C-alpha cells in the first residue's frame, strides 16, 4: 500500500489548496510520518514522487525542519521547553525528573520504544511553565511531582498514539486539575475567570527572603489563557 492508496482523498484535498504542488510538501511529510512512524528514505521518495520533485529537495526539507524525524522515535515524543523564561520557571527540574523516571537522556528513546525525550525552544506557552508537548499535545504546568501521572496517562494512551502518529494532526491540549489529574482542555472552552473560592488566598508579598525563590508551584496564576474544564 502506498501513501497515495491509503490517503488518496486527503492528499487531493491538500493539493487543491495551493497554486503549486510543491507547497504541499510539509502536509504530505506529516502524513507520511504518521503513516510509517517516521520518515524512512522510502517515504521521503514517495512524497517526492507525488509532488513531482527531485528527492533531494524533499530530503533537504526533512533535514531543515525540526518536527520531521528521519530515524525511529518513541510512541510518544516528549518535547520540553528549556528556553528563557521557562528555564527559570522549573524547566530544568522537569527535565531532570523526566530523565530520572524514564532512565534516559535527551535525544534518547526508552528501550521499550515508548518515549523519546527532547529539549526544545519556546513553545509559546511561557505563562504555563514548566510546559511540554507530547506528540504536539500541549501539557501545561508540568511540575516534577506531576511527571508520574503524566507518564502513566501517556502509557495508557499508547495504542491511540500509535494510531495517530507523532505529527499532531489530531492534537489536543491538556492540563492538570487542582487535585492533580490530567485532563483534556475542551476545544472552544469558554474563558472562566480564576476562582479563588475554596482555596487558600495567596500569601502576601513578603520582603525578599535570603534564599532563592521556590520553584513555581503552578498555583497562583491567572486563568487568562486556558480555563479549567472543572
Amino acid at each position, binding site marked *: 500500500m502506498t501513501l497515495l492508496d491509503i490517503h488518496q482523498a486527503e492528499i487531493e484535498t491538500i493539493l487543491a*489548496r495551493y*497554486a*503549486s504542488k*510543491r*507547497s*504541499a*510538501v*510539509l*502536509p504530505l*511529510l*506529516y502524513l507520511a510520518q504518521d503513516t510509517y512512524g517516521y520518515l524512512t528514505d522510502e517515504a521521503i521518495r514517495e512524497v517526492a514522487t507525488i*509532488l513531482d*520533485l527531485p528527492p533531494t*529537495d524533499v530530503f*533537504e*526539507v526533512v533535514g*531543515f*525542519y*525540526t*518536527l*520531521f524525524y528521519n530515524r525511529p522515535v518513541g510512541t510518544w515524543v516528549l518535547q520540553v521547553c528549556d*528556553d*528563557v*523564561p521557562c*528555564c*527559570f*520557571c522549573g524547566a*530544568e527540574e522537569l527535565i531532570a525528573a523526566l530523565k530520572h523516571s524514564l532512565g534516559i537522556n535527551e535525544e534518547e528513546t526508552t528501550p521499550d520504544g515508548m518515549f523519546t525525550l527532547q529539549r*526544545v*525552544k*519556546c*513553545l*509559546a506557552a*511561557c*505563562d504555563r511553565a514548566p510546559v511540554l*508537548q507530547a506528540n*504536539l*499535545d500541549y501539557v501545561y504546568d508540568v511540575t516534577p511531582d506531576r511527571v508520574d501521572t503524566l507518564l502513566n496517562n501517556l502509557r495508557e494512551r499508547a495504542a491511540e498514539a500509535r494510531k495517530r502518529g507523532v505529527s*499532531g*494532526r*489530531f492534537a*489536543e*491540549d491538556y492540563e492538570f486539575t487542582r487535585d492533580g489529574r490530567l485532563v483534556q482542555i475542551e*476545544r*472552544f472552552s*469558554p*474563558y472562566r*475567570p480564576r476562582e479563588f473560592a475554596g482555596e487558600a488566598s495567596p500569601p502576601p*508579598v*513578603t520582603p525578599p*527572603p535570603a534564599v*532563592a*525563590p*521556590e520553584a513555581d508551584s503552578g498555583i*497562583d*496564576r*491567572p486563568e*487568562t*489563557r*486556558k480555563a479549567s474544564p472543572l
Partner: protein
Amino acid sequence: MGLTEHIVMRELDIPDISDFAVYRRHGGWEAYRYALTEKTPADIVQMVKDSGLRGRGGAGFPTGVKWGFLPKGVYPRYLLCNCDESEPGTFNNHQIIDKNPHQLIEGVALSAYAIEANVAYIYMRGEFAAAARTLERAIAQAYEAGFLGKNILGTGFDLDIYVHRGAGAYICGEETALMESLEGKIGQPRLKPPFPAVAGLYGKPTIINNVETLANVPRIVEKGVAWYRSHGTEKSPGTKCFSLSGHVNRPGNYELPFGVPLRELIESPEYGGGMKGGRPVKIIIPGGASAPWLTADHLDIPLDYESLAAAGSMLGSGGVIVLNDTVSAPYVAYKMDEFFKHESCGKCTPCREGTHWLVRTLHRMVEEGHATAADIDTLHSIYRQMAGNCFCLLGESAVMPIKSALQLFPHEFEALVKRSSSRNGHQIPLIVRH
C-alpha cells in the same frame, strides 16, 4: 489604566466568545457583512490607515500603509496571516486562537476583502497543532454560514482561507522565509527588495500580517476609527496583548492600551501582581528575545513603540520577560543566544558562524567554568562582526542578548573570569544558574 472593553481578548468580557453562535450574537461577522455589502475595498484600506493600526508582529509598521503598497491592478494577490509565534516570551497569538478564534478568521476575511485577495493562508508554527484544528473548525463554521467560499453574500466576492502548518523553525516567522516555507522549500529569507507587496508568495503581490494585527481589523470597522483611536497613544493607537512571563506572580497575557507604564503591567494586582517573593527586578526583556534588555531603572517607561525605542530597546512582539536578581546575566545571554544559534537558518556567514561562536564561548565560560579575560574581548568582537552584517533580522537580533549583558552587567563577566582563574585550572564547573 484598565480597559472598559477589550478589543482583541474579548473572552474577558464575553466568556463564551469562542463559540460561533455567541460570537455571532455579539455582532461577530457583522463588520465583514457591512464591508462587503456597503463598502469598497479601498474604503476599508482607508479606514485601517486612519485608525493608525500598527503591525503587532514586531516592527510596528502601519498596516494601512503596507496595504497601500500593493501595485494597482495586479492579481492574484495573497493574504498571509503570520502565526509562527516562536519568539521566546511571546504567547498572545496562541491565546487569541484558543479563546477568540472567530474574530481572527473574520479579521483575515475582512482584510482579504480590503486587499482584494481571494486566497488567504494562515501559517502556523508546526507546534500549534491543536490550535490549527481549532482554526480549521472555526473556518468550517464560517463556510457553513456563507461567509467564505464563492460569491459571498451575493456580492461576487470569493474567498478561501487555509491553515498551513510549518514544521518547527522560528525563522519561518520572517515574512519572506515564511513564503519560501509555504512554497514547500526550506525557510531561508529572500533578498528584499522586491518586497512582498510587489512579489511575495508565488511571485504575486502579497500582504503578510500578524495574528493580533488582523484580529484588530473587525473591531476597527465595527466601532470606527475614532473609537479605536481613543485607546492608546497618538502614534501607537489601540491596545496590545502583552505576554508577561518570568519571575512575576501572575504570568499571562494582558491586553492594555499602548502607553501603559511597564511598572503597572508588572506590579498591578490585576496584571503581573508584582515579583515572586518580592525579589527585585534585574532584567526586563520587553519585546521578545530580540529586544535589547532593560533594567529596574526603566520601570516607568510607557509601553509604546516610540518610548521603548527612545530607551534603546523595542516593543517588538510584546513578550515581556521579567527576571529577578537570582539570575546570572551571562547565563541569560547564553540561553538566549543558544536559541538564536538553534534557529539560525545557515544562509549567511555572520549569523551562522557568529551565533555558533557566541554560544561556544559562553558555554565554556558559563557552563564549564573556564573564562579568561580574552573571552570577554572575543564576545565583543563576535557581536560587532555580526551587527549590521547579517542577511536578516534574526542574526541582528542575536546580537542583542550578548551586547546587553556585556553593557549592563560587565562585572558579572569579570567575576566569571576571576572565579575561573582563582580555581587555578581545576576543572570545576561554576554553578551560576538558579
